[in-house]
């Protein structure tokens, strides 16, 4: 037999099925659902199947034909429905159930949110994810988020009132210094960026990047930190990650990858000549090869260079490690033909006779004085305007030692200079070294104090006294007389031509003469002693009535008995100062002895002279101040001599610097230390140090040497840094413009890097070599106040 269908479609058998109703009669499943069904509220209507009707005293079933018509048994005798089922428990329909679940889920979600937002650590629960380990300490949201300072109720408002971004960034900046204008791209103004933009056009990048840069809304729009640094992405997240595409999008010129289109290294790493003039080609090629026996010669790059910091920037190990091996000596002046000390003071030579003939008053003047009084003469005169003016005029006279034909003004100028010089010496003697300093850098303020000290460090008053005594034996008296106008005008005599004056030739340029490249200036000990004896002679001369220059007040006549004065002083010294110190100061006792000679008669015993075993230079081997005939010299002790540095930094007296900045000058600083200035008007600045990593300097490009040590081939450093024999390295140092240079090395080859640095291997992210935040800035310093240290509160 076969199935007979379960369903009948007729209206009696299949009433409307109403899935839209919320409630279903509890008897539905048993097929006995009551005709009326549950009420809308979900209660059982309890209506039963019919409302029996009483007719002629009999109860009739009134069940609807749709529910099967009158039931067989009919109503009960008391008129209740026969088919009385107990009230059912109506069921929810499918739809009602789904609606109910939805409502519950909604309620639960809202409830959960209430708990989260309303709870104590509500804000903490809102945190979208762990912060990077570096930010672990920032527990409170408002450390970074401005909104956290406001009640939640206000947040909705903030949604529409625009981003809190700017303000939040400011909170980042409380700890992170990234320069003056963090809101600008790279912290640079548009113009600066313009300037940086590469000149040569680049390869151009893929369509996507170009589209992106088309899309770029406003490259000048202010940036906030969050745009690149995505926080709350886990403790290990790289919140500085930056995609190449994003870099390129902003950049006016794009390229596909480091290997494809990245500009070659033309001005990288060198943008200027090296600070230390060290010709790698010459040294490696020549000097190291034929170095004298026993000279310490580097064998590997590493002997001179080493990584300086975490970034592995390579620096020079320094003078001692690198240069001292060969060059320690020439700084102290060892084996140097001329005087190894810098002549700080030097008596300029004048044609005294000519002056006298012209009726000028000179007072006593060292007869054999030559030269124009060292580079510092002008600086010394600067203080006195008339003197300075006079010097200016005098400077034009080509020969000071023959003023016979000079015009009167020149002669007067000479006289003014002479007296100004004496005045200076007098001040020096009376006020000590500070007089010299003041002359050089004007009134000393506290700032200059240190510099002043450096300028004359080790210049003892005794040397000064000795010097002035040697040059102007009774300066004080003479000055007094001069001031009183009692100095006699000397009688006119034929000029005495001294050998030295003949020999002296001033063809050579100023520096050369000053620092005595020509050996002859530097006399042997004998001449020295003679000279030491010389100055006394003219003192015995008769004194003429002075011609009183306007600038000089008249002064009373004086007697020569004042002469012995320096002797007493000297003898005083002899007792006062103990020998060793004395020696150290005066570089030996010859000066003293020459003083002693003053007391004796002219004929000095040769035996005593023989007793001087070593030459003055040798005795001054360890450097310091010393009187050398008509020069007061300073000899550098060795590398990085503080005094010379001080003199070379002497801003106030450019001539000084220019003078000392000669590579030949004693100390030979500028032989290696290049001196820079952007233009002639500027002061030369000497690079005392090699390039060193500066923690506050954030370069746009950084290369980590360390990371590459392990992978260098046999070529080693040379693999990348190839010597360039052709380059004329030295030539660049003739000038003072650091930007003009020729490197010892060829340009680095990008392809070499690109063999490893591709997307697949070592990576070719822009950020591998480049930094976004560039320029000079320091991370914010801690703001802890000392007062806190003692106040009990933590």
């Amino acid at each position, binding site marked *: *037999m*076969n*199935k007979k*269908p*379960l*369903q009948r479609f007729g209206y009696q058998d299949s009433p409307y*099925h109403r899935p839209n109703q919320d409630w279903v009669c509890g008897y*539905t*499943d*048993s*097929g006995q659902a009551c005709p009326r069904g549950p009420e809308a509220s979900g209660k059982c209507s309890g209506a039963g199947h019919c409302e029996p009707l009483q007719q002629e005293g009999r109860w009739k079933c009134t069940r609807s034909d749709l529910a099967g018509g009158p039931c067989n048994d009919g109503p009960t005798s008391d008129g209740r429905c026969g088919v009385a089922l107990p009230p059912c428990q109506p069921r929810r*329909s*499918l739809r009602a159930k*789904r609606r109910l*679940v*939805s409502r*519950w*889920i*909604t309620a639960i*979600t*809202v409830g959960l*949110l209430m708990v*989260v937002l309303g709870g104590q650590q509500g804000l903490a*629960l809102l*945190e*979208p*994810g762990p912060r990077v380990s570096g930010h672990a300490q920032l527990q409170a*949201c408002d450390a*970074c*988020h*401005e*909104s*956290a300072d406001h009640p939640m109720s206000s*947040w*909705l408002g*903030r*949604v529409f009132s625009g981003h*809190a*971004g700017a303000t*939040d*960034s400011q909170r*980042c900046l409380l700890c992170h210094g990234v320069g003056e204008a963090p809101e600008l791209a790279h912290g640079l103004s548009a113009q600066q960026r313009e300037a940086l933009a590469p000149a040569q056009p680049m390869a151009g990048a893929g369509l*996507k990047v170009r*589209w*992106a*840069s*088309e*899309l*770029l809304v406003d490259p000048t729009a202010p*940036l*906030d*930190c*969050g*745009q690149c640094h995505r926080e709350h*992405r*886990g403790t290990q997240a790289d919140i500085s990650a930056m*995609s190449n*595409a*994003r870099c390129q*999008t902003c950049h006016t010129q794009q390229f596909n990858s480091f290997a494809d289109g990245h500009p070659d290294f033309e001005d990288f790493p060198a943008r200027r000549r090296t600070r230390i003039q060290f010709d790698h080609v010459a040294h490696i090629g020549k000097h190291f090869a034929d170095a004298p026996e026993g000279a310490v010669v580097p064998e590997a790059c590493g002997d001179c260079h080493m990584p300086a910091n975490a970034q592995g920037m390579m620096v020079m190990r320094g003078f001692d490690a690198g240069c001292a091996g060969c060059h320690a000596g020439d700084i102290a002046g060892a084996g140097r033909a001329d005087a190894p000390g810098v002549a700080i003071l030097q008596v300029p030579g004048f044609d005294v006779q000519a002056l006298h003939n012209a009726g000028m008053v000179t007072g006593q003047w060292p007869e054999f004085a030559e030269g124009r009084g060292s580079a510092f003469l002008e600086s010394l005169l600067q203080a006195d305007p008339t003197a300075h003016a006079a010097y200016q005029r005098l400077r034009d006279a080509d020969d000071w030692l023959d003023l016979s034909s000079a015009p009167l003004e020149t002669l007067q100028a000479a006289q003014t200079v002479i007296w100004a010089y004496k005045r200076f010496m007098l001040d020096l003697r009376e006020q000590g070294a500070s007089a010299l300093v003041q002359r050089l850098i004007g009134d000393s303020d506290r700032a200059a104090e240190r510099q002043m000290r450096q300028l004359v460090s080790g210049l003892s008053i005794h040397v000064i006294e000795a010097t002035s005594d040697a040059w102007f034996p009774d300066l004080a008296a003479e000055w007094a007389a001069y001031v009183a106008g009692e100095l006699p005008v000397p009688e006119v005599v034929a000029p005495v031509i001294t050998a030295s004056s003949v020999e002296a030739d001033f063809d050579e340029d100023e520096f050369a003469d000053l620092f005595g490249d020509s050996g002859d200036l530097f006399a042997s000990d004998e001449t020295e002693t003679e000279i030491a004896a010389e100055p006394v002679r003219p003192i015995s001369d008769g004194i003429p009535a002075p011609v009183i220059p306007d600038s000089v007040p008249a002064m009373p006549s004086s007697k020569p008995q004042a002469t012995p004065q320096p002797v007493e002083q000297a003898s005083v010294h002899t007792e006062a100062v103990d020998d060793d110190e004395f020696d150290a100061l005066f570089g030996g006792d010859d000066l003293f002895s020459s003083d002693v000679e003053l007391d004796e008669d002219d004929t000095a015993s040769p035996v005593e002279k023989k007793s001087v075993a070593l030459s003055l230079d040798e005795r001054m081997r360890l450097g310091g101040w010393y009187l050398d005939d008509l020069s007061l010299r300073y000899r550098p002790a060795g590398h990085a001599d503080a005094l010379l540095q001080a003199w070379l930094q002497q801003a106030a007296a450019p001539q000084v610097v220019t003078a000392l900045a000669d590579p030949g000058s004693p100390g030979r600083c500028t032989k290696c230390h290049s001196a820079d200035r952007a233009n002639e008007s500027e002061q030369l600045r000497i690079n005392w140090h090699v390039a060193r990593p500066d923690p506050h300097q954030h370069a746009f490009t950084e290369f980590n040497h360390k990371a590459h040590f392990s992978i260098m081939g046999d070529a080693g450093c040379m693999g990348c840094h190839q010597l360039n024999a052709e380059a004329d390295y030295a030539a660049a140092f003739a000038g003072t413009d650091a930007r003009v240079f020729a490197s010892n090395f060829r340009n680095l080859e990008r392809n070499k890097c690109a063999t490893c640095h591709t997307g697949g291997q070592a990576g070719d992210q822009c950020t591998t070599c480049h930094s976004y935040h560039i320029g000079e800035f320091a991370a914010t310093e801690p703001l802890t106040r000392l007062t806190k240290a003692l106040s009990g509160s933590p």
Partner: protein
Amino acid sequence: MITFAQRRLRNTLISGLFFALAIVVYTVYRDSHARPEFLSGWTLLILVFLLAAYHIRKRLSMLDLSPAASWLQLHIYLGFGAVLAFALHVGPRWPDGLIESMLFAAFVLTAGSGIVGLYLSRRLPRRLTRQGEEVIYERIPAFISQLRDESEALVIDAAQRTGSSTLADFYRDELAPYFAGPRHFWAHLLGSGKPIFMLSQRLNALQRYLGADEREAHAQLVVLLDQKNDLDFHYAVQTLLKRWTILHVPATAAMLILVLVHVLLVYAFTA
């Protein structure tokens, strides 16, 4: 009239192209804008609300809006679009934040149930068509009880007539529980006929103990068994078809709420 296959092909192609385009646009946008999340985020938000609007549309059946079928097509393909936007928005990571995790879960639940539901909606109806009488789901229990009454009557009658208890005993032990209500729910969902096969085997095995006058009843029992099985099948499959939305709709509700909070927080705290 375009066939369903053609329509599916067409819509898949169109949306495929559209998705590809969207990805390109997004990647470009990501490189050119500071916060691409705002693009993907707003797209996602709009999509989600469009998708939710389908629910509204279903309730507005009385208005002359375009057919619900068209809306469903839109719903389906926009749904896939939303999944894509979500992937772009969230990236390959499970969010760590509480709110975000809840939101993530809600979305995954919604989208997942949606996709599963789509699959079921396309597969199950065919199975329903192939087997048994097409009955209204809510009436299945009633029909089952109808079958139960018939079978009981049948067995009792047989027992009374023949005095043999074979069928009655078997009915008491095996069939009564079987006819008591829907059975073998999971077996039917998984398309396994084993349980009913075993049962009818045991029923057939009774033949040897039956007298000639019982065979009629036995034969009818076999048929009733079969009919009951069909009902069970329809009950199971239709249950699945009708109930998956009980996951889909509430999850959506939760998601919508969380989304609003999410947006609020994002705007209040974005730096």
